[in-house]
């Protein structure tokens, strides 16, 4: 799995950090990034409201069973295309909402009922939310999920599981870096865009050790 970029969204839905750590995605305009962040923030909130119905279906009890038993998917023809203007991927895009209440031993990721990942044929987005409402997003290479046979294919679900666990561990480490180099910096104002050299450096170092 290649990590393309990292986004941080504050609790109001504003994009405060965007860093393309590895080449591979086409650039958007600054405004488009802001819209993307705001949209994801909104979709995330709405997705979490879908939860109760999904929970009626089943309550997964083991980590390995999460994606198989409690994954509900929404196939969408517009969202994937809207995020990437240069590639025509309107068709075959899948959005996954993984409802995993009580299943994963979610520690600092408070995201239990919201959108956890967005998958398209060309990339995946993984979302990690803190108790304080910050969202850390990773855009990565696709989860290996071929949307034609989709989530019914057990093999790709194992990959998906592994990938999202990996993404979450990366995001958790980024959160830790954030707490050191952004929070302990007196020149950073809360909720504002992050322009902190050391944070950039440490994030880049981390991503390098992973690839």
């Amino acid at each position, binding site marked *: 799995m290649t990590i393309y970029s990292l986004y941080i969204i504050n609790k109001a839905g504003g994009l405060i950090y965007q860093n393309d750590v590895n080449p591979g995605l086409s650039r958007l305009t600054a405004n488009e990034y802001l819209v993307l962040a705001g949209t994801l923030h909104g979709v995330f909130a709405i997705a979490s409201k879908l939860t109760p119905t999904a929970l009626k279906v089943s309550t997964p009890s083991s980590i390995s069973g999460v994606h198989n038993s409690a994954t509900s998917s929404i196939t969408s023809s517009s969202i994937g295309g809207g995020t990437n203007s240069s590639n025509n991927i309107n068709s075959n895009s899948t959005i996954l909402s993984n409802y995993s209440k009580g299943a994963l031993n979610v520690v600092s990721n408070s995201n239990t009922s919201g959108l956890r990942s967005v998958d398209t044929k060309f990339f995946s987005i993984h979302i990690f939310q803190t108790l304080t409402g910050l969202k850390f997003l990773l855009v990565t290479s696709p989860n290996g999920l071929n949307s034609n046979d989709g989530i019914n294919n057990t093999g790709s679900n194992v990959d998906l599981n592994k990938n999202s666990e990996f993404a979450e561990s990366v995001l958790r480490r980024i959160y830790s870096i954030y707490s*050191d*180099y952004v*929070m*302990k*910096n*007196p*020149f950073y104002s809360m909720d504002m865009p992050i*322009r*902190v*050299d*050391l*944070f950039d*450096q440490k994030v880049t170092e981390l991503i390098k050790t992973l690839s």
Partner: protein
Amino acid sequence: MSSQNIINPSTSKPTGLKAGYNPSLGPIQLPSSYQSQIASKSRNIYDHSVFRRTPEVNLSSLSFLFSAMIEQTQQTSKGVQQLEAKLNSYGYGVGNKFLELITLREGKSAKRETRIVEVLQFIHSQVWKTLFGRPADGLEKSQDSEDEYMIIDNLPLMSQFISVPKDFNQLNVNAFTAGIIEGILDSAYFQANVSAHTMAADGYPLRTVFLIKFDHGVLEREAIRFSR
């Protein structure tokens, strides 16, 4: 009738007795029955041993406190120079007192440094170890001028999480540590000006050089005393 009642004019309001030396009364011994509010405390600070090592406190706590201190200082400062000067003065107060404490803790092995190089080595090793847990990374003499020395720290403990924005021209928040050094040097009778400068090196973006510029008198004294 106690001595106090005799000396004080009748118009004066009775004040609480305080043990210690009163310029108009001389030493005051309180009756043993008297207990001041402070003395009634279960533990008195004088009962603490100064030799006891304080329990370690998380580096995060220190970093947050330092960060908040800089933030607050910055809000009340006009420009980088004033901010640095203020941080320096905070450190100066620490340094002044710190020399006393460290020499006291060293006990019998403590000695008063009389030569420039020796006092600098003392700061480079003992002081740095006590404050930051390890000796500084370098001690150099300036090649350009006689009165300048440099102590080098590759990754200053206090500021390791802090990146200074570019529009804060040349600010180095280790002005605080520079102030500590200056306070120590001054109370050791080596009057000097100390400033902190960022000089990044490969792999050490926060490498900081503490430039110590001694007063002319210090150099003269050294020359007279140790020339022969």
